[in-house]
């Protein structure tokens, strides 16, 4: 009884030790690849920064259009640092893939295939987000300028609302393109649109009486030729 129990305990332990013994060189190789890869990433980052800085690359950030684009994108670091970081992260990703391939070539192939298959969607999603941001800023600014020049009160709220709606619309498109959160995005968009329309209807409904009176007063005065500016600007 005792030898049988001992064997039943010993055998799995032996198999574990044997597997561990076989896995040890693989783990060691992964550790070496990761260490070298991360060191290389750090080295390339530092070297690139130094070279670019020495070459005066950061001066392009002083150009108005570049500075404006960087500021709008929320990037406050010099271009040399940004480029160095970009290369560092690229090397880190390649290193991680290399380490994964040591562990299992099949797993790496699967991950790579999935990444490659998802890449177009990811790129399209990102493009939609960037486009959405640009369109929402442009539309919001256009509405702001129009409404301020028309002397509409609450112009900033109006512009902010337009910007939010356009932004959410593009975010919903991007999420749908990426294949997740589709329903949530559509619901959010519907709530925002519906809420916006309801809020506008309520606002106009409540304030419309006064607004209509003001408009009619103004129209009457204009029809009578009262209060009408006759200034010729040109």
């Amino acid at each position: 009884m005792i030898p049988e129990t001992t064997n039943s305990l010993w055998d799995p332990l032996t198999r574990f030790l044997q597997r561990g013994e076989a896995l040890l060189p693989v783990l060691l190789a992964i550790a070496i690849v990761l260490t070298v890869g991360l060191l290389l990433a750090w080295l390339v980052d530092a070297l690139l920064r130094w070279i670019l800085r020495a070459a005066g690359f950061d001066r392009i950030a002083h150009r108005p259009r570049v500075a404006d684009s960087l500021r709008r994108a929320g990037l406050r670091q010099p271009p040399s640092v940004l480029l160095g970081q970009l290369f560092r992260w690229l090397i880190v990703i390649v290193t991680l893939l290399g380490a994964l391939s040591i562990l299992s070539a099949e797993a790496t192939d699967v991950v790579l295939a999935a990444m490659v298959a998802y890449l177009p969607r990811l790129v399209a999603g990102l493009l939609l987000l960037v486009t959405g941001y640009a369109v929402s800023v442009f539309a919001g600014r256009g509405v702001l300028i129009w409404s301020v020049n028309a002397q509409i009160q609450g112009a900033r709220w109006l512009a902010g609302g337009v910007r939010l709606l356009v932004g959410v619309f593009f975010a919903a498109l991007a999420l749908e393109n990426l294949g997740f959160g589709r329903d949530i995005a559509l619901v959010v968009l519907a709530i925002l649109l519906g809420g916006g329309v309801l809020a506008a209807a309520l606002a106009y409904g409540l304030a419309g009486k006064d607004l209509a009176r003001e408009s009619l007063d103004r129209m009457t005065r204009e029809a009578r030729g009262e209060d009408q500016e006759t200034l010729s600007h040109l």
Partner: protein
Amino acid sequence: MTESTILRDDVRRQLGTIGTADLVVGIPSFNNARTIPHVVHAVTAGLAKYFPERRAVLVNSDGGSTDGTPALVAGAELGATRAILLTRPPQPVHRVVTAYQGLPGKGSAFRTVFEIAHRLGARACAVVDSDLRSITPEWLQLLLAPVLDEDFDYVCPLYARHKFDGTITNSVVYPLVRSLYGRRIRQPIGGDFGFSGRLATHFVGHDVWQGDVARYGIDIWMTTTALVGDFRVCQAYLGAKIHDAKDPGAHLSRMLAQVTGALFEQLEAHAPHWLGVRGSEPVPEFGFRYEVGLEPVAVDVGRMVHAFDQGVRDFAPLYARFLDAETRRRLAVLAGRTPKDFRMPEDLWVRTVHAFALAFHLRRLNPDHLLPSLTPLYLGRTASWVNQAADYGAPEVETELESLCELFETLKPSLADAWREGRMPS
């Protein structure tokens, strides 16, 4: 030089029949049935009285009027000879009545006139607005004679105007053109001009008809193009300019954007010329100056100041992109004033205009957003001027305007330095 194809087939055939002309007078129009008969009569009377032996063509370039404007021009009785006491029969005036092609706007209408003048080999041309109520036959002599008799290429108008009228001209265009191009042309965008056939041909050769130049920007484009070219420029005193009231407050923002946009685009194109200009000099003047009674002008200063306040508050994030902190601070301080006490310091206005010109040059903001965002500040400047000039007579108005122009000239070097270095003024 590009050969224009803007003329319709029937117009080209008509020009073939006419052959050549000494004088071409263009009248752009759009729904001006109320005023255009008077303008046509004044033009034909002027041609008959002062140029009876010249072959003249009157061109009506219409933007698709629905009130019968072209028909009125085509059917107008020409040559009111009895009224102007002619001693000999004048040459008949040919009429070309056509709908212009291209973008809707005065610039496209003028383009048709330029091409007709070019094709007819005209020696002298004039363009006059179709909504004028104060045009007289003498205007034709004043606009055409300097070209025919004195070899000038471009005749700008000089008007007697109400002190509150023409504020875009007085606050932006005249001071900028004077300080940058170095010539004291008082009405660079007056609307009524005389020009030589040589200059008409020069105008036709430009390909600028897809933007603001095709609309309200045509006047400033013509003036600056003449100034930087090898053309002799003068101005002629025409008296009062009274034109049909057509809801003057409407589309101010668009009008201001088109004029400033066209002017700023010209600054881009002419930078090598104006960067080297220092000071300014007067241009030769024709015509007999006299005092005229002017119609009163109604202005709502409270509305303008309110627009200024709202603009300074709501456009703050936009202004932060191209106006320096000190300018924004001073504008914010002004935004709290009551309409009665509202005064915008002249140097603040000059710095603001320069900042907009530089922001346009450096593309700090999309031009479609940048230019209309000047409207509230312009209204602030106008309100300030109305308050300041409330008790001014004509001499004081010109003195103050002279002082503003001198300030534009004084501050020009900082604009030029920033322009050369590609930065906003510090």
